[in-house]
């Protein structure tokens, strides 16, 4: 990866922490992602509608899963930390299929 590539990516690490509870979007803006064109998370929407726990909505540290009023789950993959929590807490219906993003893509942790 060239230096140019890196500097072109979102790098808004200059935001200040309000300390008493940071706005979630500001928090996520401090992380760097090189987004893949193909999603690495696939969700079976039908299985989600019958899910009573919706644990993915709670545990995902990036807040990628949102519960819809219809009972379904809306998700995005772009700002994923690639931890795996979502599919591991997913109920018996195994609605979430999760793998690593394609090589070189996804989260880039600089001070992990």
């Amino acid at each position, binding site marked *: 990866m060239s230096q140019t590539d890196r500097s072109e990516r979102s790098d808004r690490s200059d935001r200040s922490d309000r300390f008493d509870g940071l706005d979630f979007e500001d928090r996520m803006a401090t992380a760097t992602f090189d987004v893949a064109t193909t999603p690495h998370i696939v969700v079976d929407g039908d299985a989600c509608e019958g899910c009573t726990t919706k644990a993915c909505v709670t545990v995902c540290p990036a807040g990628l899963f949102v519960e819809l009023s219809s009972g379904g789950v809306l998700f995005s993959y772009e700002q994923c930390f690639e931890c795996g929590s979502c599919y591991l807490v997913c109920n018996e219906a195994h609605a979430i299929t999760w793998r690593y993003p394609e090589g070189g893509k996804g989260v880039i942790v600089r001070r*992990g």
Partner: protein
Amino acid sequence: MSEVEVVVVGAGPAGSMAALELARAGVETLLVERGPFPGSKNVYGGVVYPRVLGDVLPAWWERAPIQRFVTRRATMVLTETQAVTVDVRTEAWGAPPYNGVTAYRSEFDQWLADEAVRAGATLATSTTVTGLVRDGDRVVGVMTDRPDGELGCRLVVACDGVNAFLAREAGLYPGYSSHHLTLGVKEVLRLERAELEARFNLVGREGCDIEMIGATGSITGGGFLYTNLETLAVGCVLKLDELAAQARRPEAVLTELKAHPAIAPLVAGTELVEYAAHLLPEGGYDAMPELGAPGIVVAGDAASMTLAAGVWLEGVNYAMAAGRLAGQAAALARAEPGGIAGAYVHYRRLLEGSFVMQDHKRLRRAPKVVFSEFVQRVQPGVLCDVAESFFTVDNPSPKRGLIATVRGVLRARGVRWRDALRSALATARLFR
């Protein structure tokens, strides 16, 4: 299908040490990393204990990208309004061979991978291993997302991290479960260097590491805070199942931890530069997988080689040691008629004889004790109340002895002697 003698999956501490050892033994080794550079996917709870590097990379401290050398190590027990801290400081940890160091994993892991390359290993970044190639019961290669796809080999060293996809695919990890996992969330906060050193009582490259228990509210887990050169990192590890069951957001737990009266002044006036999250295997010895099979060995987080024993929180050291032993096992097997695919037999034996398995075996009850209801939610209150009461000068009442103080606290908190003693005994047995 291209061929290489050994494929090491994952250029973290386990993988790079394995590749380093293999390359030094003259084995053709490909170290495959899915990130754009080693360390780019890694997040940890703050301290590398690098003495295992001693005879592999002598005087590593002169070359490794270290932030600070930990000379101050504190364990805090918290309630919502109290804190009792054991704060250990020694000059001995500030000189070679050192004890613990802090580092950015993007720098440290890259450095270690570079050492493997210097020894003769080949590093392929931006390459995700998507599965194993098998011939009957034997692992004979990996599938990657590169255009040329399959990669044949005699041995796969699976250091692919906590999700352990390869060990699970190989059938080595039937017990893999979210019950044994914690979610770590971490904030890296910028603080001007002089201010940081004044705040944590540090001089030069000295560093501080603080572990916390009782800081995660209704969720079982723990907190940590450690210093880099010009940033500090604060985070918590939370039992994944409980987060899900209680519908608590992980960053909300961390925000509460940061607002604790004993923590807030330490993080005041800082600026968030990076938020990150990662899973940790914290099931200990009883949650470990089979460590290998024909054509494959497993090391590091993928083999649950982390210790979460309350006062000891280690992982990178076990990963580095296990990776090294995997490399040595492969070199031994290679000289035998069965060949390098039989490395798992030597690997198990070498691991059993090393501190990696000895520590995990000895502390196999640690997860149960440390994550017990009593230790997490009763003991902190008892300890803090006893300390507070003991040091409260309640004139004109005369001073009470320690036993009377403990008795009073247990009564006030509705804790039975029997439960307190049982927990104290379990803890004592754990560390004996």
